[in-house]
């Protein structure tokens, strides 16, 4: 076999690749373990399930990430041009079958495991005695409606929508069920009680997102989309819009106040008293 001169400067790029890829791997591992910029703590049981699935996916993809980048760095370093002739290898059926099977099992396995928490959010019924809140997106704010003492949401007449006269949802003034409906720009929820949100939109698509709930759901005009959960931690959390809805998209913002049952009832009574005036 004839030998020839190695192409000039073949060691430097090989070493550089090794350095850059190792820094990439090390910094990625560090930032994923150190949690400087990370998920806030979940406040629902399903949120913890989702975090568990996230963790599992981090571990599996993390292993693959490290192995693949390190393998690439090693191959590039080990097989830099040294003036010899390359090995003549066309491939390997055994390897092809092996890595196809392994990735198929891992990827589909992850998908099957993740199906459970998705089902919790979307398939199960909300718990008994769930509090229903209607969430309406409109450029560029959220309105939250509670049924009031009668437990019934009043009728909505689209042509009556007029935020300037205090009727942002277009409640029908002639419907008795609408009289006691509570409409507020922030979301108040009692802790440890099943909640069902009904998402709708008056104009374009918006998306309801609270990080700590681990729930994001588009609010689509023309349809009502239910979302249910139970919050187990009192506190204030930010509600943002996550679907581009126009020029004010970035400031479409509300606050989720999770209150103790007693505080929530007190808040409800205050709202009812205001409605009665």
């Amino acid at each position, binding site marked *: 076999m004839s030998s020839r001169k190695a192409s000039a400067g*073949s060691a430097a*790029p*090989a070493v550089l690749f090794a350095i*850059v890829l190792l820094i*990439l791997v090390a910094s990625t591992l560090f*930032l994923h373990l150190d949690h400087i*910029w990370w998920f*806030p703590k979940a406040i629902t049981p399903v949120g913890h399930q989702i975090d568990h*699935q*996230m963790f599992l996916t981090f571990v599996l993809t993390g292993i*693959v990430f490290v192995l693949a*980048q390190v393998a*690439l760095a090693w*191959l590039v370093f080990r*097989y*830099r*041009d*040294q003036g010899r*002739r*390359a*090995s*003549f*290898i*066309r*491939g*390997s059926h055994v390897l*092809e079958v092996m890595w*196809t099977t392994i*990735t*198929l099992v891992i*990827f589909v396995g992850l*998908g099957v495991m*993740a*199906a*459970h*928490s*998705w089902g919790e*959010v*979307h*398939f199960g019924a909300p718990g008994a005695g769930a509090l229903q809140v209607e969430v309406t997106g409109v*450029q560029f704010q959220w309105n939250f409606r509670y049924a009031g003492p009668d437990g019934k949401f009043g009728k909505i007449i*689209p042509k009556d929508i*007029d935020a300037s006269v205090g009727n942002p949802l*277009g409640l029908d003034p002639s419907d008795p069920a609408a009289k006691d409906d509570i409409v507020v720009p922030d979301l108040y929820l009692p802790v440890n009680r099943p909640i069902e949100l009904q998402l709708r939109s*008056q*104009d374009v*698509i918006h998306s309801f*997102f609270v990080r700590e709930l*681990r729930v994001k759901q588009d609010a*689509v005009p*023309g349809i009502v989309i239910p979302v249910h959960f139970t919050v187990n931690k009192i506190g204030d959390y930010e509600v943002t819009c996550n*679907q*581009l*809805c*126009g*020029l*004010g*998209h*970035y*400031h479409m913002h509300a606050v989720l106040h999770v209150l103790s049952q007693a505080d929530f009832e007190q808040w409800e009574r205050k709202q009812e008293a205001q409605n009665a005036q």
Partner: protein
Amino acid sequence: MSAHAGPVHHAEAPKGFIRHYIFSLDHKIIGTQYILLGLSAVTIGVILSLIMRIHLVWPNAHLWGFASGIVSPEDYLRVVTMHGTLMVFFVLTTVPQSGFGNYFLPIQIGAPDMAFPTINMLSFWTTLLAMLVLLSSAFVPGGASISGWTSYAPLSAVGQVAGPGLGLGQTLWVISIALFCGGSLMSAINFLGTTIDLRTKGLSLMRMPLTVWGWFITACLALLAFGVLLAACILLLLDRLAQTSFFIPSNLDVSGVLLHHAGGSPLLWQHLFWFFGHPEVYIAILPGMGIISHVLSTFSRKPVFGYKAMVYSLSAIGFLSFAVWGHHMFISGMNPYSALAFSILTLVIGVPSAIKTFNWLGTLWGAQIHFTASMLFAIGFVSLFVTGGLSGIFLAQPALDLYLHDTYYVIGHFHLIMGVAAIFAMFAASYYWFPKMFGRHMNETLGKVHFWCTFIGVYCIFMPMHYLGYAGDPRRYASIESVNYLIPLHSVHYFITISAFFTAAAQLLFYWNFFWSMGHGKRAVDNPWHATTLEWAVSTPVPHDNFAGHYPTVYRGPYEYSVPGAADDFVPQHLAPEQVAKA
């Protein structure tokens, strides 16, 4: 078309400047025109991304060209929309396929030109017209669209009542994309006809270079996907101009105006758009996969590891790409049961992608790697493809997408795997094929410096976006001040902006190298890389009909490097067995 639909060709190029360089029927000129169109689009696209980065961290910076001197929230969204549209359609879709594919597909299969040269010219001019219409939308009253490159209805459908830019600007956006669909459909037909009918003697399907496979499968996807987008654009145009209600439901109250539409479905637009949109990301990356396999093999001096597995996985990706569009819609309000099917199918499409990665690593195994600038970009591509692919495993699971959807995590993911990886493939292709296209080499040292700055730069831009996503930072926000939990993320945004400037500056090296080398680069011989495929069998500069009337016969597969018993470490496809020198 008549039975004799093959290229009507004169061996001589037309003499006049206009017929030769402007309204040319020559696939090489048209390919170059597409590359220059893409280069202009990417230049504007990068400048727009810098404007976004400046605005996010210095919201009061004075920038030339904006009405109030500073970037308003609607300006920001115009920039977002224009950046996405230019990059996805006019860069990622055109350059790897219509640019390099146009130039090298006919040569690599031993053909004098594309099957339909006139259609080829028409598709370029339609695409250019589409780009001019898109750019013109920035100068009409109300300005360019603010609805993003995905143009979700009803925001994009109800007109300027929903916001600035949603009047004439949005209409021009839709017309531009419809024109683009027309150009891409014509181009797809041409690629399919050429690959099927014009292969030279001996070039069986399983002897085609993987580049040709990449362009062929991409053309299949383009033919099926762009037709759907064209239909969707026509429906959207009717909603906007003819008061139909395909995408607009009843009782919409927009900015206090009750609209007289009824019966439409906003989700219909998303289904149509993503039925195109997911194959589209493979349209952007499959030619790149072909190019990377081609370059890795050449500079590893080895056959592509698992050639057949590469062909089958390309085909599997192409086939499955039409069955995964729902993963863009997990939180859209689509039936949640269908999310499970889309989730599993999406994870399954990861398998052929993983197979390709393993085979690229296998190609390096036992190699003698020549670190040319082209090869550096190919190796960088593999690293980016791994990183960008793995974040896809998160987004494919609807339960995790509940949190990550529409955050910067998604931006980081698709920029790495679809944007930057495809652009790395274009850079690899530029450094690799430049000698054949222009008869001169690009400067290798400059190319290597360009690679290291870009490789490190893009990781510094897009890796931190994953952490922003973990913290819940939503995409398409014109301000990082508007939500309290975004405040601790400022340092990350600063870092990304600085990295973006560094990386963009590094691209000046490429521009300089590209244009300077055309006239002053080192002169190239016919086969400078000692490569095996047919583009290296023709002389440089390439004759008008590619092979000067002598069409080659192909005797073997495309990547016969370091064959035992042969004197040279490469055995070209067109060399008859008796001509191969023995060691």
